[in-house]
């Protein structure tokens, strides 16, 4: 089997699973359906692992086309794969998390009428995500980009009878349209100026310093005559796409609402994989982004803002999934910060560690939700560690990894980001440094607030009424008065344990090869800035980094965050109420509860403006011009014409024959020289 075919199997197995399960109708039993879907993803995971191992052992990067889709105007549009270490790592992360989520789904979606539909969707998602990361050109990247978007849309609205779910998926869809619009424009600019959509061809045009100088000095005129750096325009537009997909401020508002979808997809799509597509894309395009300091500074500032301010929102959430969702937003901000300071490798490193521990946290949250009979309000929980021991331990591991406890996976990637920001000198890096340092405290605080409220303290589920509104499914409304929470079944616990292992260890193992640049090799280009060089010089092994942490600020900030959460939510809850009312009197809580009024801005300001513009187009363009003049006008014309033609169209043979003869006469007119001259004059004939 040649290599291209081998790589093709990786995305094709989940696709076949999705098609078989999705189109089989009632032919397959539930067991057969999930067996097929899981087998497809498992096969894909094993092959991905082999790809990574092979590349690690020195196999060269693969870049080849499977087939030429079509050639238009000299531009080849191909379907092909670029498999280097960056791709291989993404493939393994995507297929591993996906496999875990597939297994978990057996338990979580048990008895749901859409059981098979769900499996079909998540397998289809796996296929789309693999096509995105394995692509060797922009067109296929865009295909994968949109395909994961579609599946995300379908899954957020999976329980399509709930109005909130439909609102959420529409919101996700519309916000992503904004991002994709920019992305598409960016791709268009690339095609226009580089003359190709193929990565290798494009990067080949920027690989020497003379070429880089040429492209950096090239400008285009926007809005008439304002000159703008071409590469800056391309990078900013591409990054708008990344902002939509990776939920960066101000296009972040869809991600918290996406929690309306079933929990397994929150773990897979809205935490581990799809939302990191933007990060991956920027890392993949690093040879372009490196050329634009303006774009990098923009990325840095947006990322830092997301990292800090979305963290604040995590503090006041009471829905267990929303806490994790805001934490995801904040962590995506950290990754974006890493991209902004040209530490792409570390950004992708954090993407990987985050995929494991955030998927773990989401799946653990799902397990808690099941244990609580679909009550998601953390104020109704408490003391769950006795009832759900495995969920408790794995959640603790996930939370420790998230806040950056030394030796845990999140520590290596997050500390490296902080170091990289400290080493960077580009515009905005001091603001970003403040944001990521402050973010450490915030992260620790909201993570352990949730952890303590859920697993420690008193059992509160008996002391509240049955009025909690955040039910996950219409049939379930929390525990009945006599019930206690119960541990989930093994299909749910197994993925938790399997994800806890990398959450603990992957950072320690992978850090050395990432810091010294061995991991990604030439897949990522960051030579224009020396951030990575400084970071790798300061790195003296995983253990040394962990020991050094005890003498650095982030560790103590994280610790104080945990202690603060313990004091306020376990030791002296009355103290917490006082502090909360103090902040409320300052109006800060109100600001946070309204999510900085971003949603208000969109719904009450932007949407009316957009719809009123739309109304103008509708009234003038559609109703008046198209409907009135073109469609109805044409219909009237056709009506009149048909009245005339119906004289011949009565079904009599002589009428038909007459029409034929008339036609021949019309053609005869061409014979006469006069007609020909007239036609030539108006350009109808050569």
């Amino acid at each position, binding site marked *: 089997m040649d290599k291209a075919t081998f790589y093709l199997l990786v995305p094709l197995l989940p696709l076949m699973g999705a098609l078989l399960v999705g189109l089989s109708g009632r032919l397959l039993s539930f067991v057969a359906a999930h067996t097929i879907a899981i087998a497809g993803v498992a096969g894909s995971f094993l092959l991905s692992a082999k790809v990574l191992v092979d590349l690690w052992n020195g196999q060269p990067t693969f870049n080849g086309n499977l087939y030429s889709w079509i050639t238009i105007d000299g531009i080849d549009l191909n379907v092909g794969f670029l498999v280097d270490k960056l791709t291989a790592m993404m493939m393994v992360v995507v297929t591993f998390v996906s496999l875990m989520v597939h297994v978990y789904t057996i338990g979580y979606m048990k008895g749901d009428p859409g059981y098979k539909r769900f499996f079909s969707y998540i397998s289809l998602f796996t296929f789309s995500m693999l096509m995105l990361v394995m692509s060797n050109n922009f067109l296929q990247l865009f295909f994968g980009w949109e395909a994961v978007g579609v599946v995300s849309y379908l899954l957020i609205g999976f329980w399509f009878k709930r109005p909130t779910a439909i609102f959420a998926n529409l919101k996700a869809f519309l916000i992503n349209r904004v991002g994709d619009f920019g992305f598409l424009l960016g791709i268009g600019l690339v095609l226009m100026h580089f003359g190709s959509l193929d990565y290798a061809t494009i990067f080949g045009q920027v690989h020497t310093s003379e070429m880089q100088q040429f492209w950096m000095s090239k400008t285009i005129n926007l809005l008439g005559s304002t000159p703008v750096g071409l590469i800056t325009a391309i990078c900013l537009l591409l990054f708008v796409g990344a902002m939509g997909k990776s939920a960066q401020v101000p296009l972040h508002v869809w991600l918290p609402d996406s929690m309306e979808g079933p929990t397994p997809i929150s773990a897979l799509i809205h935490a581990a994989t799809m939302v990191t597509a933007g990060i991956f894309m920027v890392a993949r395009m690093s040879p372009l982004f490196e050329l634009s300091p303006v774009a990098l500074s923009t990325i840095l500032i947006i990322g830092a803002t997301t990292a800090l301010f979305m963290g604040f929102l995590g503090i006041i959430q009471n829905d267990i999934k929303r806490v994790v969702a805001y934490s995801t937003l904040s962590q995506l901000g950290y990754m974006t910060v890493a991209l902004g300071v040209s530490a792409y490798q570390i950004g992708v490193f954090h993407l990987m560690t985050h995929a494991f521990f955030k998927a773990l946290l989401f799946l653990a949250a799902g397990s808690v939700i099941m244990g609580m009979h679909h009550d998601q309000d953390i104020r109704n929980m408490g003391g769950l560690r006795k009832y759900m021991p495995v969920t408790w331990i794995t959640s603790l591991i996930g939370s420790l990894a998230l806040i950056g406890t030394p030796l845990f996976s999140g520590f290596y990637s997050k500390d490296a980001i902080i170091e990289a920001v400290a080493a960077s000198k580009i515009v905005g890096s001091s603001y970003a440094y403040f944001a990521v340092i402050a973010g450490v405290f915030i992260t620790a605080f909201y993570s352990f607030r949730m952890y303590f409220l859920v697993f420690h303290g008193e059992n509160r589920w008996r002391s509240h009424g049955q009025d909690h509104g955040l039910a996950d499914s219409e049939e379930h409304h929390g525990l009945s008065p006599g019930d206690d929470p119960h541990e989930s079944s093994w299909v749910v616990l197994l993925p938790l344990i399997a994800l806890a292992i990398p959450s603990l260890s992957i950072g320690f193992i992978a850090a050395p090869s990432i810091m010294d640049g061995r991991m990604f090799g030439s897949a990522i280009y960051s030579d224009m800035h020396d951030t990575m060089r400084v970071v790798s010089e300061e790195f003296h092994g995983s253990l040394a980094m962990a020991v050094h942490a005890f003498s650095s600020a982030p560790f103590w900030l994280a610790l104080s965050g945990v202690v603060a959460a313990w004091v306020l939510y376990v030791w002296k809850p009355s103290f917490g109420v006082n502090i909360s009312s103090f902040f409320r009197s300052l109006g800060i809580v109100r600001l946070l509860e309204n999510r900085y009024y971003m949603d208000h801005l969109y719904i009450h300001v932007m949407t009316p403006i957009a719809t009123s513009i739309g109304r103008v187009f509708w009234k003038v363009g559609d109703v008046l011009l198209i409907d009135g003049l073109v469609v109805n006008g044409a219909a009237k014309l056709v009506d009149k014409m048909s009245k005339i033609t119906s004289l011949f169209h009565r079904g009599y043979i002589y009428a038909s024959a007459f029409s*034929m003869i008339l036609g*021949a006469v019309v053609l005869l007119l061409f014979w006469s020289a006069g007609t020909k001259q007239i036609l030539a004059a108006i350009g109808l004939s050569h």
Partner: protein
Amino acid sequence: MISPWNSADLTFLKPELWLLCSACVILLLDLVSKDQRKAVTHWLSLLSLGIAAILVLAGGVKSPQIVFSGMYVVDQLSGLLKFGSACLVGLVLIYGRQYFIDRSMLTGEVYVLSLFGLLGMFVMTSAFSFLTLYMGLELLSLSLYAMVALRKDDSLAIEASMKYFILGALASGMLLYGMSMLYGATGSLHLSEVSARIAQGQTSRDFLVLGLIFIVAGIAFKLGTVPFHMWVPDVYQGAPTPITMLIGSAPKLAAVAFVIRLLVQGLPAAFVDWQSMLIVLSVASIVVGNVAAIAQQNIKRMLAYSTISHMGFMLLGLIAGDAGGVAASIFYALVYSFTTISGFGILLSLTRTGFESDNLANFKGLVKRSPWLALMMLMVMFSMAGIPAFVGFFAKLSVISAIVSHGFVWLAVLAVAFSLIGAFYYLRVVKVMFFDDSDLDVVDSPFSLKCFVSVNALLLLVAGLIPQPFLSICADAVNLSLLG
């Protein structure tokens, strides 16, 4: 230049000879067979179609072989189109079987006439002189006239057949008149000599153009382009659905070959003249076909007008006139006929005895009654409308880019605008299937029929995902046939 034929020429005629012999044998066998379901006849016909297709492939030649004293040509182009026609006729027999059985119309004539019709198409595809062209055309037409009238008790079918026959005779008359003019002008019936003599400039231009006009009129009738289209809606609606399917698919391939042989190969010197005539036909067909289709409630009639507009599109490639344009036309014709046949196949899957299912209303709520067939019909309609990722898009794209590269931007804009109008009635079928409610029964069609129709419809998607190989096949066939 022209040498007498020798027996070696016969080797190039294997598919035609095979079809002729097997049609005769099947005719005789059918006389003695007492089987009401005609199983033997059915399978033998399919077998002989399969062998004919294989013989066509096996007899593929690199460069064009002109045999029988210049009467007949075997090249890549004819190979491609003959193979396509044989497959299409086979599909017609497969799709139509249940329909014929249900309505006790299953007579041996169906099979024998189909085979003779196919033989006619083969001859048309390979003909290289006026005489053979006309012979092939009449063999095909006579078979079709008889097949339309297969239901002797159905007055609509008889009426359709009569109209088809009379108008067809008129068109044949025009064609023959045009041919006789050209014969008079050039003194030869062989296309190669006709084109050579015109190129030498010894012919009277008046005779030439007069002949050309009548030839184009005859061609336009066979293609069903406006204003020679009047028979199309009546015949489509009146004929039994499987026969409509036959008329709408394979003969279009033969007709395209007919046009290419006559105009592109036979009369290249008169290119400017026939180009402008084809523009008139093409524009009129695209406009009238798409606009009239909107008003139709009967699906077969709607597909008839849709065919008219598709033939207009197909002509666009010939208007470009170069190898690329001809290849685009052939690709368009192939895509069109395979799309149409799967559309009719789905229509047939929905019919029962006494229920033709040929009204738009019969498609209401199909997604509830047979979600799979609804999905397949959706693919067919999307492909016909030219929505990307389906092969119909690439067919339209290739003909439109062919004319744009020759400077006919206005024609391209018009074609795109009207395909937009056309999208309306294709998508209306989808809307009716997926969003309207229905009180009709669950569809119960034979599994094998469903399988074939599904593969057929799914191929439209597959070919849309990998169009390049199919486009290359057409381009290569044209390059090797017209240039090499």
